[in-house]
């Protein structure tokens, strides 16, 4: 007996798995730095016991490096925790600046490894809507992955949350090679289902090299 696969559920799990793999990689990098720093301290301690001179400045640098890596790993784990909790409530007041910042952190390893620079032009005052944060995060992840194949030579993508009369929008700019055909191909079943679940609308502007994700002010209210 076969069970139908829920496309939106599968896309969510795929997204979560990719982020988990990326984060575990980052944590292992932090552990590797701490491991080498601690190992070096052990090495020089043994040398000092044998009467060799120890460079105290180098030791101070290593201690600082270990503290920095602990902070780095702590930030990574906090971000993972925030992503995990974004599934707690299907309709929650969400600051899009904060959500976009989280996604920049979570996607950083993927984007940097591919040689891309992803930044944000945060809104002041912050744009706050009631939405399903996990679906928005998942869509941002999917759009970023698509956008990396559509940027120009600058290999730079910018996200900008903007308040609108009906809610908010997130602009993804820097997609100089964007074509309508590629954009249509991007809108697979999970993408369209997610856009629908968010009561949102996805648009592309080839001339401006831009994708726009339009979000309602309150997902818990009937669609306008």
């Amino acid at each position, binding site marked *: 007996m076969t069970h139908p696969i829920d496309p939106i559920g599968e896309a969510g799990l795929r997204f979560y798995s990719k982020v988990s793999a990326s984060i575990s990689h*980052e944590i292992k990098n932090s552990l590797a730095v701490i491991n*080498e720093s601690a190992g070096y301290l052990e090495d020089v301690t043994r040398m000092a016991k044998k009467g060799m001179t120890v460079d105290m400045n180098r030791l101070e640098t290593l201690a600082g*490096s270990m503290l920095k890596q602990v902070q780095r790993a702590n930030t990574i784990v906090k971000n993972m925790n925030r992503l995990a909790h974004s599934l707690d409530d299907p309709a929650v007041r969400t600051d899009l600046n904060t959500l976009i910042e989280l996604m920049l952190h979570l996607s950083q390893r993927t984007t940097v490894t591919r040689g891309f620079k992803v930044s944000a032009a945060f809104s002041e005052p912050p744009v706050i809507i009631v939405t399903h944060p996990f679906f928005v995060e998942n869509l941002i992840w999917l759009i970023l992955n698509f956008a990396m194949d559509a940027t120009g030579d600058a290999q730079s993508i910018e996200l900008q949350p903007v308040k609108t009369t009906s809610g908010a929008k997130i602009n993804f700019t820097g997609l100089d090679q964007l074509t309508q055909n590629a954009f249509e191909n991007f809108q697979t079943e999970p993408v369209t289902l997610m856009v629908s679940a968010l009561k949102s609308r996805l648009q592309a502007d080839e001339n401006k090299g831009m994708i726009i994700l339009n979000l309602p002010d309150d997902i818990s209210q009937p669609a306008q």
Partner: protein
Amino acid sequence: MRLLLVDDEKEFVETLAERLSLRGFEADWATSAKSAEKFIDSRHYDLVLLDVKMPKVGGRELKKIIEKKLPGIKTIYLTGHGSEEDYHAGSAEAEYYLMKPININELIAKIKDALGKEAQS
């Protein structure tokens, strides 16, 4: 024995190179493929330790570049990445494929093994 370590995590690669130097190896380090190529162009190396996942040019791509310049050079991959697919592909290409964080004694044993009787420490 001269080694070149390449990893985009500067603090990691710098400290590991220092620890290997304390154990008798001549170890240079670089944080990108571009700077690694400069080292390769200026000196001879017996073995390179390459991080698999690096921005722009990763370790597997860099290995091909280095092998064109130094045919027969031995390679050990280092990675924090744990996918089965990468492990199998990496293991087939390099002498060894080690996961971070690494044990220095294990690394040295692998370096010596890769270099055969030439290794001195």
